[in-house]
């Protein structure tokens, strides 16, 4: 059988050459283009079975080209390549119907696998994707999720898929505190067709039950003492937008039952009222993993739980995506330079090594607080490790916050052990300035075993050398 043609679009001739070599070895015919306009011309002339395209190119924006490709031939799989794996482009690319989204550096195995998969598929486009999933303007900078690691790329892709589902598809976001659950909720809202409708966040722990109830459901005039005027609840205010219920695990049994009814019937009454009011909003709820324990103990209704989590988004803790910590650190450095009117230019190598290996029990929020404090304290150009380490040591003395999760024993032990290993190895390397032999000796481990731990946690000795 004749192998199909693959079009590769990139402004970097080295990348084009690499692709052509890999694909030619596998017997595909390759057609190359240096920019978007050329690519569109080649598509009409050659009808390729698959397109690889770098999204950052001169002349026309890659996403715009993708849109035009999809109007020319909706079924042709297009694989997007980018050097910067930001949330915005990933979500947008998936919404516009990209088959897959790869970040540089590319590896040959991945290119081969994607080529096979993409060509094996004549993509069955979901009825909503691409058409209703238009994008509504740029999200405010402060709501951007930061992270280029593989687990975050998965989260971005899932957000893209979710944003094309109807509002009655409820979403549950699971993640430890400080991982950015509200940011995910906002991203789902902003990526959907109802982004111009309200986003209404409510923290279920912030208010006592009666207040929370009237806050959510609203009340009629005279419903209870002090209810002077009719008040609209959050369910109504949200219209066809999004209701974000944070810390849902803390909802009282009474409100759990009422919420379950709202989700089942998609309607409710204001307190003291009799008229049923339709709910058009999407429910996005968030909780940490303790909710399963709460369910086992009978404090959280199982039927409500399953109703809430039609789709689940699992947010990885920061220690499982250590690649992102330096990126986040630089982002917060910029943010607090601006806010505090400082001009700290960066981190010393040792400070950066610390940031990369610290296990962050408080996740992104803890990292942000660390950087804010360090920017405030730093007098010179760069942040030194002491500015970061002090508060960490401080808190760990006061309250050793171990991430003992409400999972099974074996899993929790493994997690804790991994944190211990990572911290142990980094601290020794720091003490011995990156000298592996000395660090191994100091820990009374063999050099081999020490190195095994280093590679297990992707810790590089050179980041600890002066």
């Amino acid at each position, binding site marked *: 059988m004749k192998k199909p043609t693959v079009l590769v679009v990139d402004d970097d001739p080295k990348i084009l050459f690499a692709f052509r070599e890999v694909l030619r070895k596998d017997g595909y015919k390759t057609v190359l283009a240096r920019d978007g306009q050329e690519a569109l011309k080649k598509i009409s002339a050659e009808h390729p079975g698959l397109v690889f395209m770098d999204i950052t190119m001169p002349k026309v924006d890659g996403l715009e080209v993708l849109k035009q490709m999809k109007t020319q031939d909706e079924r042709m799989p297009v694989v997007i390549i980018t050097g910067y794996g930001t949330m915005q482009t990933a979500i947008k690319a998936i919404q516009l119907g990209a088959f897959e989204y790869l970040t540089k550096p590319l590896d040959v195995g991945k290119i081969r696998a994607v080529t096979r998969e993409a060509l094996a598929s004549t993509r069955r486009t979901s009825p909503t994707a691409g058409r209703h999933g238009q994008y509504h303007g740029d999200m405010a900078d402060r709501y951007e999720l930061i992270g280029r690691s593989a687990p975050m790329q998965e989260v971005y892709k899932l957000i893209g*898929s979710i944003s094309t*589902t109807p509002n009655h598809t409820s979403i549950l976001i699971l993640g430890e505190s400080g991982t950015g659950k509200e940011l995910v909720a906002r991203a789902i809202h902003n990526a959907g067709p109802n982004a111009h409708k309200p986003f209404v966040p409510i923290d279920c722990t912030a208010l006592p039950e009666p207040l929370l109830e009237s806050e959510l459901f609203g009340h009629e005039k005279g419903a209870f003492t002090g209810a002077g005027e009719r008040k609209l609840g959050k369910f109504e205010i949200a219209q066809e937008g999004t209701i974000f219920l944070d810390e849902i695990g803390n909802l009282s049994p009474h409100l759990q039952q009422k919420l379950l009814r709202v989700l089942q019937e998609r309607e409710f009454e204001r307190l003291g009222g009799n008229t049923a009011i339709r709910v058009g909003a999407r429910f996005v709820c968030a909780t940490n993993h303790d909710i399963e324990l709460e369910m086992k103990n009978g404090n959280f209704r199982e039927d409500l739980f*399953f109703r809430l*989590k*039609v789709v689940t988004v699992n947010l990885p803790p920061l220690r499982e995506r250590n690649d992102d910590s330096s990126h986040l650190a630089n982002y917060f450095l910029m943010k607090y330079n601006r806010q505090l009117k400082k001009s700290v230019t960066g981190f010393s190598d040792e400070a950066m090594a610390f940031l990369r290996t610290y296990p962050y029990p408080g996740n992104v929020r803890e990292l942000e607080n660390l950087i804010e404090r360090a920017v405030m304290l730093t007098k010179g150009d760069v942040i030194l490790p002491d500015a970061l380490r002090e508060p960490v040591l401080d808190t760990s003395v006061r309250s050793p916050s171990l991430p003992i999760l409400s999972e099974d024993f074996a899993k929790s032990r493994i997690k804790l052990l991994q944190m211990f290993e990572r911290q142990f190895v980094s601290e020794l390397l720091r003490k011995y300035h990156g000298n592996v032999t000395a660090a191994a000796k100091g820990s009374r481990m063999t050099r081999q075993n020490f190195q095994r731990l280093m590679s297990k946690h992707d810790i590089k000795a050179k980041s600890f050398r002066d």
Partner: protein
Amino acid sequence: MHYQPTVLITDDDHNILAAFEDFFRRENCSVIGVTSAEEALHKLESHHVDLLVTDVRLKLQSGVTLLLHAKAILPKLPVIVVTGYPDLITETDAKMYGANYFFLKPLELDKLREAVRTCLHMNGKS
């Protein structure tokens, strides 16, 4: 030799999983049975699979999450969604998320058999 298609089944009830496994073996399929969406995703990434059958109500991530993920990585993979909770998800929803077939438990085996054969045929492997 005749091609033996692989079916990945996700159901957190071990009894139902075992019953499914019997059913698919009689249909001449090779079967991978898992009890969570997380395991299923892992299998999808590491094995060749011709058909995904999933329950909606699973412990951690739901069957719908699995379906969305699966369709994102393997758009052509046929998926059969099964549920004992018709109020959690409607047939229209399931199909919009990308499912090819939607069945309520208890299953009518004749209908399931017909759907499986169509799915595997669609994938061009039977």
